[in-house]
């Protein structure tokens, strides 16, 4: 395993975790539709209990995504989290609210009342996917930061990375193309949320409502996603000279990446087809409720291919618009060869982890949630 291989391997692992995170944001998507999919208190409680048995996985994937980034690309962790302070803080606040809302909402003495915690879930359901989408869009559109490691020898100003303006990350929301991807991820999370609930909650009313809402979420998702994809593939991208490390603008860089990495392009196409298949079949068929699996797998493939496109093939994955040469690449921001190799051995545990998650998921979801289960006391 060469150092270059390890850098690419770890970008793959981080991208895979990012892709799994987007898939698992079906939890957020369904929560954002809590009052729309569930017309009665019982229906809402079924939805909350359905997503409530998976929220920990989404949360853990987010934490592991952060931890893996820290271990493998610490300069990104330092630059993005320390620079885009407010963008990440708002995302974190929304996840803190979510973490307690399931457990607290129907408990006596929760001080704020059930509806407050439900609104917390909705806030997280909207803000989480949207802001994470905006943050990911900066991988293609750039951010405003400067990195100077020499600052470490300056006793007066030793910080090596700083944001180039006072917004500390909120400037990402001023770029319309970041908003486009943010909204696309938001609607995708809703699509996945509907597919998940239709599969996991055994209730005709919710399924009927889900079919209708699915169309309403799919249309804006497709429009926004296609617009972002076409624009990204055609715009100038942030390329790196592998021998000198110099970053420069290259016309249609991301399209070139797909052409150079046919397997990534194939993943992208396969992913899109699977998502469309899941949506179309769920809308057309009255009995098909397993769309979440094709949709989820398709989402993982699409997001994985986009993130690989952003980091592989001599591309700067976290470009700086303030100082092009400060842009982060998988080569200049990664951990040492020793650490990446050590972490690679640890990553061999991932299939084992995925295996027990699948076993538990199947055992727990063998029977869908229904109205009878709402009479038991194993509930949120």
């Amino acid at each position, binding site marked *: 395993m060469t150092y270059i291989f390890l850098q690419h391997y770890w970008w793959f692992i981080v991208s895979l975790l990012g892709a799994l995170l987007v898939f698992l944001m079906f939890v957020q998507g369904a929560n954002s539709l809590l009052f729309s999919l569930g017309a009665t208190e019982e229906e809402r409680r079924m939805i909350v209990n359905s997503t409530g048995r998976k929220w920990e996985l989404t949360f853990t994937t987010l934490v592991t995504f*952060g931890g893996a980034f820290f*271990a493998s690309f610490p300069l990104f*962790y*330092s630059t993005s*989290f320390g620079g885009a302070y407010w963008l990440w803080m708002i995302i974190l606040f929304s996840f803190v609210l979510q*973490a307690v809302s399931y457990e607290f909402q129907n408990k006596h003495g929760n001080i704020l009342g059930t509806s407050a915690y439900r609104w917390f879930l909705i806030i997280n359901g909207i803000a989480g996917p949207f802001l994470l989408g905006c943050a990911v869009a900066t991988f293609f559109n750039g951010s405003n930061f400067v990195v100077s490691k020499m600052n470490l020898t300056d006793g007066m100003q030793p910080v090596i990375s700083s944001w180039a303006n006072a917004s500390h990350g909120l400037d990402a929301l001023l770029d319309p193309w970041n908003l486009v991807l943010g909204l696309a991820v938001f609607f995708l999370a809703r699509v996945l949320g509907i597919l998940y609930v239709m599969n996991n909650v055994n209730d005709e009313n919710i399924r009927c409502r889900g079919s209708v809402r699915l169309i309403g979420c799919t249309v804006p998702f497709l429009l926004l996603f296609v617009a972002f994809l076409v624009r990204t593939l055609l715009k100038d991208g942030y390329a790196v000279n592998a021998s000198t490390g110099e970053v420069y603008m290259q016309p249609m860089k991301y399209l070139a990446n797909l052409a150079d990495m046919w397997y990534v392009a194939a993943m992208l196409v396969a992913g899109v087809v699977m998502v469309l298949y899941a949506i179309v079949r769920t809308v057309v068929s009255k009995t098909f409720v397993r769309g979440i699996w094709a949709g989820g797998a398709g989402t993982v493939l699409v997001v994985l291919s986009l993130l690989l496109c952003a980091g592989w093939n001599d591309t700067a994955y976290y470009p700086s618009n303030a100082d092009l040469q400060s842009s982060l690449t998988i080569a200049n921001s990664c*951990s040492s060869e020793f650490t990446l190799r050590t972490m690679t051995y640890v990553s061999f545990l991932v299939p084992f*982890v995925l295996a027990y998650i699948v076993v538990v998921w199947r055992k727990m979801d063998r029977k869908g949630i229904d109205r009878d289960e709402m009479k038991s006391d194993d509930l949120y």
Partner: protein
Amino acid sequence: MTDILLNIDASSVDWSRAQFALTAIYHWLFVPLTLGLAVIMGIMETCYYRTRKRFWKDTARFWQKLFGINFAMGVATGIILEFEFGTNWSNYSWFVGDIFGAPLAIEGIVAFFMEATFVSVMFFGWRKVSPGFHLASTWLTGLGATISAWWILVANAWMQYPVGCEFNPDTMRNEMLSFADVALSPFAIDKFCHTVTSAWIIGAVFTVAVGCYYLLKKREEKLAVESIKIGAAFGLFASLLAAGTGDGSAYRVASVQPMKLAAMEALYNGGTDVGLTAVAWVNPFSQPDYSNEGEPPLRIGIPNGLSFLATRDAHGYVPGINDIIKGGYRKPDGTMALSLDEKISRGSRAVNDLATYRSMKSRDRKDVSEDSVAVVLNRLKANMPYFGYGYVSDAEQTVPYIPVCFWAFRAMVGLGVLFILFFAVVLFMVYRKDISNAKWLHVAALVMLPLGYIASESGWIVAEFGRQPWTIQDMLPTWVAVSDIGSGSVMLTFFIFLVLFTMLLAAEITILCKAIKKGPKA
């Protein structure tokens, strides 16, 4: 304390420290109960699995319900802590991310997923999986939480005692050389054992307190007595282990963080045959003038105790704060301690040599010979152990706030001893006598509950206050580790966290109290 508050200026480093302390303190309100109750409810469900009696099932489910209420807050506060390393300590993240990031990532992959996957089986799987699978899930939830504690404590121990790494001047950061040295550092092992056993004490105190509450109210007597039996036995076992591991931790501190030990003991001028202080008058509201004052008045202690604790020799030499500043004494590893002035001088040379080295290696410089680069590099390597001192300007910056370290240490140790006595008495009473009418015992157990939290938080306060001013011991002071964020932004997030966590804590306590009042049949 007033001084501390008045001295917190508007700099982002102070607000970042305050924010990290706030989130860590809140996080540690929930985590020890999670770790402790995980074992308690595991034991109770094992009793159910073996006997298949309805009573044990109800009891296990009752404790699992309380576990769940507390668990969510631990998760919520934990995510903030992880990301704060990046958001508030960005220089730190780069400077040591190569080493520090690995335990965090492993924590996620190995521990968090285990916890997250099996906790839902534990709560919702009673009717969906077999009793054996459910029991395994309950224990795996606790195991996941404990493995998580292992990795985060490995990371924390490394900050106190950085091993297994080397500074790379080409990348301007520290890089890992030995994963085994980091993951199995003796400091990490002691820290893990002491922290987890102290968390078990909280779980045990909580169990005994809830049991005694029911006895006081004359209800749920069987559940109360059986819970008290398990809680007291587990608590006594944990308290004795915590005392042993605490002694080990203090010995490690003495060898690698002598300033922390001196602050914990308010030992200004050290020597041989030093006693371990039980109490002394250290003004809790102001930093003592350690360089001019004599030892704190009214010191009562165990003769030769500190010498023995720090060196395993009753006549061993223990340096005080002024000795550490002046240097010139022999350290446990046999080398001579440098004076602070010498450390600052060598640290400054390391920082300057790093700048020179980087300048020589710059692509534009063709006039630099390999020999001159090697000379600078060798000098840099020789002075690198003192790199952090290059950012220090005077002795005052290197001395932690003594009153907090001193009193927090006393609170932790004193309450630790009290818990051993308490659990021994409860255990004796519950097996030998009818405790249903021992009101004094019921009240004592309820009083013990907040004391458990005070002891546990005090431990962390000693560990983290005592490490000041270092984010990483001798390597990186806090003011070099911090992110370049305006103090206004950090101040705002500090208050948002304060309000949010306080509100959620109030909600959790109320929910817990209501759930306990309702009892297992609710």
